[in-house]
């Protein structure tokens, strides 16, 4: 079974359809994406060039076997398995999820979005056993006001109301 993403006129994925592999064989008996696109145009009345093949086993630009282990990377295709609402980036020939925040940029190595500040390296108190973890989120408004800040967190064991917010300074959490 092959899968094709159906693109809307704005490049967004509006559906993903399956197609039997024998429906996309060319005259030489080889699987050919363009044959599949033509077949889908016949079936669905939607232009052939707006059907883009996508790989069920590819995510974050890595090919995975059915058991979840990393597989033959020559089989990876277009960054991610397309989903409804994803965007097809024609220049990079990849599917991307919706941009999470305006300041985040595409990473074509991982077919994902990178925050302008690296994700915090400290995610809990470092004790054994762990006493609390940090509940971390991105604050786009905060980043736009001060480009040195963006990641913020609260402690999981903080019972105060409202909880104390901490800002990540690049190496440690600072109480606000």
């Amino acid at each position, binding site marked *: 079974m092959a899968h094709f993403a*159906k693109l*809307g*006129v704005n490049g*967004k994925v*509006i*559906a993903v359809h399956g197609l039997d592999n024998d429906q996309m064989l060319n005259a030489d008996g080889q699987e050919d994406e363009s044959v599949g696109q033509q077949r889908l*145009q016949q079936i*669905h*009345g*939607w*232009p052939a060039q*707006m059907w883009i093949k996508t790989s069920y086993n590819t995510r974050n630009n890595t090919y995975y076997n059915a058991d979840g282990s990393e597989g033959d990377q020559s089989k990876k295709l277009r960054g991610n398995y397309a989903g*409804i*609402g994803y965007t097809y980036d024609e220049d990079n020939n990849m599917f991307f999820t919706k941009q999470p925040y305006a300041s985040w940029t595409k990473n074509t190595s991982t077919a994902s979005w990178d925050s302008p500040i690296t994700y915090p390296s400290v995610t809990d108190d470092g004790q054994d056993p762990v006493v609390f973890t940090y509940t971390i989120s991105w604050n786009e408004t905060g980043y736009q006001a001060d480009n040195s800040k963006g990641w913020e967190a609260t402690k999981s064991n903080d019972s105060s109301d409202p909880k104390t917010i901490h800002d990540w300074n690049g190496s440690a959490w600072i109480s606000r």
Partner: protein
Amino acid sequence: MLEKHKLTEQFYIKGKVDSVSAVNTKLIKNHILSNFMLANRYDDPQYWYMKEYVKVPYHQHIQWTQDWLRDHYRLEHGQTLVPTPIDSIRGIIQQTGEQVNTHHNVKDWHLAESPEVTCLYTVSTGPKKSEIVFEYDDGRNKHRRWSVPLEQDQFILFSSNTSFYITKNENKDFLVNLSLQFQLI
């Protein structure tokens, strides 16, 4: 903190199927008209308004229209439009001087097969535009009306429980609409 929660809504959405789609409204029009000539009108004594509709069997371009609406509604609103179990495809034909009387499409004694969203797709209209007129209550503002002109190749999706009528066809030619009934999942 003021948390507002919407319990119900009545809406309409208008638009056009992308021109890149192979949907051909002339073919749909001819398909509806050919069934009209066969006198395929609905006749249901429990729901008088079904006489306003013509039975329309499967047609590939109607299927493509349903597909377009399903895909784009899901992308924008996160729910999937699924054709109702029966009578999901109907035609409305207004000859010169005819109008469609006020009704809504929820069958009060057959809720399981009733639609939640109705689509009116104008596949043929003349130079004199008819209008779909919605009738609704808004709190103590009772008996409100809102009219939308029926444009060639334009669809209007609306809540199936909203009563509506279509004004008189003042053209020499037939006014032909495709009516699609959907449930939401």
